[in-house]
């Protein structure tokens, strides 16, 4: 008896294995690193933006309609760049939302198992294409085609790059919307059928409204990608900041401007150099707002699905 008791005491007091103790610290360090990187980026953006706003007033930044920091007649109206970003993103959404949503409904509700088996990975292949290829696709393939249809379309324009950007974000929107539609419990579909609803009526009246927050989250994530997309617009949209909503002329987005300055011969520490941080800050604020909105919508979706 005694020996048995000692034995169990020894067993109880045996220390936790080393790996158990180490692993939580290692994982914790990784998590901290991610957060620290984000904090570092924000800190750099902030300090450099402050340097920019010492030379340019916030008033000028928000109220001027021209963006010409690299010219002798300097203007710092951010809206010229915001307009370009907004224009290409809206065109991209106009392409990707209807196609993505209809595709998601088809995949989730109508496609047979075999079709779904082939189609879903095929759609996701689109997401794996490097954006530089999309850029040349826009410039050398889509734009010439569009020029035959749209009169007065310049070689570099918002329309072609927007359309291609729509193709780029299509898999994200389709895939996330499909997840949201798939998450609608089948009991709700059956409830709709039992009330004399046809298949499409059930989708329209019950399935889509129930998955609305998930679909909205998918659209916002897609928009956030479009706003942040760089390569396509740098290649195919031109480099002329312009306060316009005309999709036919060359424009410049916030991202494309940053590329232009980063790759040019602008000396560090100058006002021209600081502009990219102010633009980066603006871009970051927009995408972060979109991501936070999407996060809350998805949280609402999971809560809705639980009930």
């Amino acid at each position: 008896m005694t020996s048995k008791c000692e034995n169990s005491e020894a067993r109880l007091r045996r220390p936790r294995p080393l790996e158990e103790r180490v692993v939580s610290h290692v994982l914790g360090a990784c998590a901290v690193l991610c957060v620290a990187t984000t904090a570092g980026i924000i800190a750099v953006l902030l300090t450099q933006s402050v340097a920019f706003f010492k030379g340019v007033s916030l008033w000028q930044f928000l109220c001027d309609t021209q963006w010409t920091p690299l010219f002798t007649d300097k203007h710092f109206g951010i809206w010229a760049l915001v307009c370009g970003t907004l224009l290409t993103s809206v065109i991209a959404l106009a392409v990707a939302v209807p196609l993505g949503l209809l595709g998601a409904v088809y995949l989730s509700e109508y496609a047979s198992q075999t079709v779904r088996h082939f189609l879903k990975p095929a759609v996701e292949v689109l997401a794996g294409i490097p954006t530089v290829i999309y850029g040349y696709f826009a410039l050398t393939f889509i734009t010439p085609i569009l020029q035959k249809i749209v009169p007065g379309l310049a070689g570099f324009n918002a329309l072609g790059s927007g359309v291609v950007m729509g193709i780029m974000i299509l898999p994200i929107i389709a895939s996330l919307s499909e997840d949201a539609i798939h998450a609608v419990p089948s009991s709700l579909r059956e409830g709709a059928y039992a009330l004399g609803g046809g298949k499409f009526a059930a989708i329209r009246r019950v399935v889509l409204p129930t998955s609305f927050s998930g679909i909205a989250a998918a659209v916002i994530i897609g928009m956030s990608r479009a706003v942040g997309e760089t390569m396509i617009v740098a290649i195919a949209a031109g480099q002329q900041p312009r306060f316009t909503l005309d999709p036919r002329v060359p424009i410049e987005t916030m991202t494309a401007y940053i590329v232009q300055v980063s790759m040019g011969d602008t000396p560090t520490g100058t006002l021209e150099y600081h502009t990219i941080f102010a633009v980066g800050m603006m871009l970051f604020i927009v995408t972060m707002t979109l991501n936070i909105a999407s996060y809350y919508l998805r949280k609402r979706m999971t809560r809705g699905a639980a009930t």
Partner: protein
Amino acid sequence: MNALKVKKMPNLPDASRPVTRMIETRQPAQISKTPRMQVIDLHAWFGKTEVLKGISMSIASRGSTAIIGPSGCGKSTFIRCLNRMHEVVRGARADGKVLLDGLDVYSPGVNPVRLREMVGMVFQKPNPFPMMSIRQNVLAGLKLQRIKRSDEDELVERVLRQAALWDEVKDILSRGGTTLSGGQQQRLCIARALALEPEVLLMDEPCSALDPIATGRIEELILELKSAYTIVIVTHNMQQAARVGDRTAFFCLGQLIEYNDTATIFTKPLNRQTEDYVTGRFG
């Protein structure tokens, strides 16, 4: 809905008549002579598994028919075949005749969507539509079928009263359907089905997700509704069958073992298997 009946009646295959007579002689005399629904040699499959192995029974107009039996006996599948909800599931298939007022609902040309409007269904788990208010849930059937009615308010009040829910929700009609308690949600689902003025109301274990008090209220409701509607209720709870069923059918392993007045089933069943089940010796 009457148009469908009138239109389809002349197409009724005459061959069904002798079968019908055969079935009526097989059933005890006390089963109503004017059946609302008649099921003739109904088979159902999930993939390759046959879950219903030739069910024939008639369901009388008005009153309630309870279906009892051990888990997996096919009782839920059976009522899901009555409004063709069974075939909604991928890989599920049914074969046989189900006559509603004489018309085979499985005959070609019958639109299952219209059928489900006439044969309403309440599910095991309350499933009000989460993005709709209480009022919108009641009117969901009309919305799904694009039916416009000028008397929506009266309809909402009438069916919510019928479902014994009006007094609890009359001031919160615009609140979400899923904010209600489980028992209230289930009564909302009943109201939703009643709003379509169904000929038959199918209930698939409507109380199995509810507590005893909510169950009691649903049972009271069934007792009230059965004077106006034809109700078929599946239940795994034998006391419930005894309380609410006018007639009871006992299913086992995909077959109808015995079908009779509830009192007879529970006091002097003819079949040994039935007796073992209702006395709790098996199942």
